């Protein structure tokens, strides 16, 4: 084993060590940035400095896919393998890259320069295909991350030199209550945010309202969580505010990783102050003096911009001691994830902040009483918090002018796939799918509509007949479609949905944490069966196996990941029973008889 000079590591750990185990992920990020990976002596030094058992260090490194125990290439290129990128040719880019570097996906080139990996959704579905790159410079012992969008197959030279372009997000819709400063290719400054009424809510809340008044206003607004679970935000805050014990914590969940979801990234990259203002108001409401802002590891630009916004807000007196002269102290710390979808599950996210493997906890107890570090905690999604300033500044009634009784206010949808204008759309709850798809996003591209995946990998498929369903919680529920995190992924009639299903099931198999049996075993078995479905080599009884595995995961899994890991497959079995019951040849021949309407199985894409 080569010798490692641990001097720079010890210097880097000096600041983190007093925090103990909670600083484990920051320490591992810092160490990997110095050495390019986490060799044994480096991992052992991190353990010693933070007082974490070495076996636990191993467990944590192994859990997060962006940490490496083996030498990785100086340039790590991660190509998204999920549906939206696949539709735009991500596979051919991956293959071209592998040929160039002479490696197989997942391997490091012989000269140690490149590691090329398939990765899960990078949140750039609107600008697919996407590649995330980590570049390590052994000479200076520094490392940096960047994501590139709209990667063209002829841009390999640029990619290998870590050059490319960002997302240039399109933000559209019928409203701009929360996205007014988004989609401009840069983050709005605090000053710009203030010119559109920004920070008025923080001032109003802290100077003129009691925490209970803030909670009441949010409750009256009908605001619910936008991460997928739709829990009433005001009720959550009230629970944390009333919970005995302390200190209390406020957590921003920016671990957006659901395939097809990129709204939170667009908000963080465009208007980070708005999110932080929402969190300041929330922290005040529950009586927390510390906010953790947890951003997924694959979002380097968002992380940078949120951090700059925090610096700006702190300098302007919106964070720190006695903010706005209210006597209220509030600090905020940004935490980076390291490649684990499960950390978007709130209790897994707490574990991650605590320096552990991101494994969901058994609920109850719930976070409002037993959250981060076992203390009362409110945790909210980025989009949810972006709506809070409007509610506090203009009042719950103004917020309720938009949307329906049960689905109040504006909503962001992430439109991607085969549409003319993929992007984030801010609309009032209650418009139809057709309006979003045709009028706003420019309609289906490359053929007729085959299907829309709603709610992400954990979602369900809509078809032509659903286009007039209104986008509200109540209407979608009646139509059997989940709103989830606002994913609207469009597939035209030429797409092979079996290939898309395989990608979704691979996603869950890769992202299952492995804690509970139904999901640990079920995501693997589900993927294996869908592999046979895609190859047209189903075994007798596979359809029943899929149903049993699916319902067992749904009914018996410990957390939301397992409980929704079969959602898309079970939905597909309803929408296209022929894909699961008959052999490929039979389906093909039915189509060639000119059955009309939707084509289910089209020519396989060139892979």
């Amino acid at each position: 084993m080569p010798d490692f000079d641990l001097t720079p590591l010890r210097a880097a750990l000096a600041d983190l060590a007093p925090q103990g185990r909670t600083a484990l992920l920051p320490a591992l990020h810092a160490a990997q940035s110095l050495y390019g990976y986490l060799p044994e002596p480096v991992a052992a030094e991190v353990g010693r400095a933070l007082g974490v058992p070495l076996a636990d260090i191993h467990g944590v490194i192994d859990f997060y896919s962006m940490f490496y125990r083996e030498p990785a290439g100086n340039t790590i290129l991660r190509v998204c393998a999920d549906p939206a990128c696949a539709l735009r040719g991500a596979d051919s880019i991956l293959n071209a890259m592998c040929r160039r570097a002479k490696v197989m996906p997942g391997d490091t080139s012989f000269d140690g320069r490149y590691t090329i990996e398939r990765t899960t959704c990078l949140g750039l579905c609107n600008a697919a295909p996407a590649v995330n790159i980590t570049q390590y410079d052994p000479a200076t012992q520094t490392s940096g991350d960047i994501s590139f969008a709209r990667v063209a197959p002829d841009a390999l030279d640029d990619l290998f030199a870590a050059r490319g372009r960002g997302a240039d997000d399109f933000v559209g819709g019928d409203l701009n209550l929360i996205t007014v400063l988004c989609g401009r290719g840069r983050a709005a400054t605090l000053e710009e945010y203030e010119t559109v009424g920004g920070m008025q809510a923080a001032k109003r809340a802290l100077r003129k309202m009691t925490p209970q008044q803030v909670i009441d206003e949010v409750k009256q607004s009908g605001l619910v969580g936008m991460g997928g679970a739709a829990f009433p935000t005001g009720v959550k805050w009230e629970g944390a505010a009333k919970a005995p014990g302390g200190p209390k914590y406020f957590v921003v969940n920016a671990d957006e990783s659901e395939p097809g979801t990129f709204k939170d990234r667009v908000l963080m990259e465009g208007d980070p102050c708005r999110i932080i203002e929402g969190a300041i108001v929330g922290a005040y409401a529950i009586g927390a003096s510390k906010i953790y802002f947890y951003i997924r590891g694959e979002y380097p630009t968002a992380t940078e911009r949120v951090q700059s916004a925090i610096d700006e807000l702190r300098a302007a007196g919106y964070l720190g001691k006695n903010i706005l002269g209210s006597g209220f102290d509030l600090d905020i710390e940004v935490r980076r994830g390291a490649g684990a979808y499960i950390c978007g599950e709130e209790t897994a996210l707490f574990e991650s902040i605590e320096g552990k493997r991101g494994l969901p906890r058994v609920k109850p107890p719930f976070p409002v009483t037993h959250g981060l570090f076992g203390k009362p905690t409110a945790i909210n999604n980025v989009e949810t918090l972006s709506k809070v300033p409007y509610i506090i500044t203009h009042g719950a009634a103004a917020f309720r002018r938009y949307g329906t009784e049960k689905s109040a206010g504006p909503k962001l949808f992430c439109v991607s796939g085969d549409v003319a204008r993929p992007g984030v759309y801010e609309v009032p709850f209650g418009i139809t799918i057709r309006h979003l798809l045709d009028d706003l996003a420019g309609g289906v591209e490359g053929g007729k509509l085959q299907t829309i995946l709603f709610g992400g990998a954990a979602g369900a498929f809509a078809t032509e007949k659903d286009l007039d369903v209104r986008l509200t919680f109540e209407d979608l529920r009646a139509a059997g479609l989940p709103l989830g995190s606002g994913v609207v992924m469009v597939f035209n009639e030429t797409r092979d949905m079996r290939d898309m299903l395989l990608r979704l099931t691979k996603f869950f198999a890769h992202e299952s944490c492995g804690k509970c049996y139904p999901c640990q075993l079920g995501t693997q078995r589900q993927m294996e069966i869908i592999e046979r479905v895609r190859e047209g080599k189903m075994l007798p009884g596979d359809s029943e196996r899929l149903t049993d595995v699916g319902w067992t995961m749904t009914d018996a899994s410990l957390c939301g990941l397992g409980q929704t890991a079969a959602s898309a497959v079970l939905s597909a079995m309803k929408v296209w029973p022929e894909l699961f019951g008959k052999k490929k040849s039979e389906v093909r021949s039915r189509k060639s008889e000119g059955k009309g309407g939707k084509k289910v199985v089209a020519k396989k894409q060139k892979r």
Partner: protein
Amino acid sequence: MADVTLTIDGKAVSVPAGTTILKAAQGIGEHVPTICFHEHCTANALCRVCVVEVEGARVLSPACVAQVSEGMKVQTRSERVQRSRRTILEMLDSAVDLSEAESIQPMLKEYAADGERFADGARRDHPLLDDNPMYIRDYAKCVLCWRCVQVCADDAQYTYAINFGKRGFETSIATFFDKPMPATTCVFCGQCVGVCPTGALKPKREWLLQEGATPDEIMQATRAERRRKRKA
């Protein structure tokens, strides 16, 4: 504490508040199967074979940790419950060598789990690890119940010699950089061996006997290794 009244499979039962459904069911002679649960370990509700159907709940509830509440209606063998238990057992049987899992074998029978149903799926085949004089680790038999990791840590010994490797289906029990046990903080207390339900952890002598070694050979093997360990 005040008593709570609920019904389990139609039978009314009163138990102190805070009782788990598992204990309440056991109290009236209803058998709820468990794999990961152990009286002396923190319950993590991860094997999910103890799930039961609670009226009004969206998903099934793990009986080992779910507490009773007033008026609760519990079904311990509804169709949903049976399907989940059977499928979990079938999937487990297809991934792990359960041949020495004495507590799980009767469950496979009771739930008519078809061991061949997922036979073509990936198995967790791990080579047997024989790296110390006290016990062997045969992780092809490991069901990831977590008991060994827990007794090695805060549930008993505070030794922290083992944790996990990888995640998802590929999760395994692991030491720091996969070092052999004598190179870890292991104190060879044997508690992990004691709580292992599947024979994945086994006293070295028991294993050598099974392998057909004579008592003399066993003494020879373990003594020599112990001496080596002392020197190291």
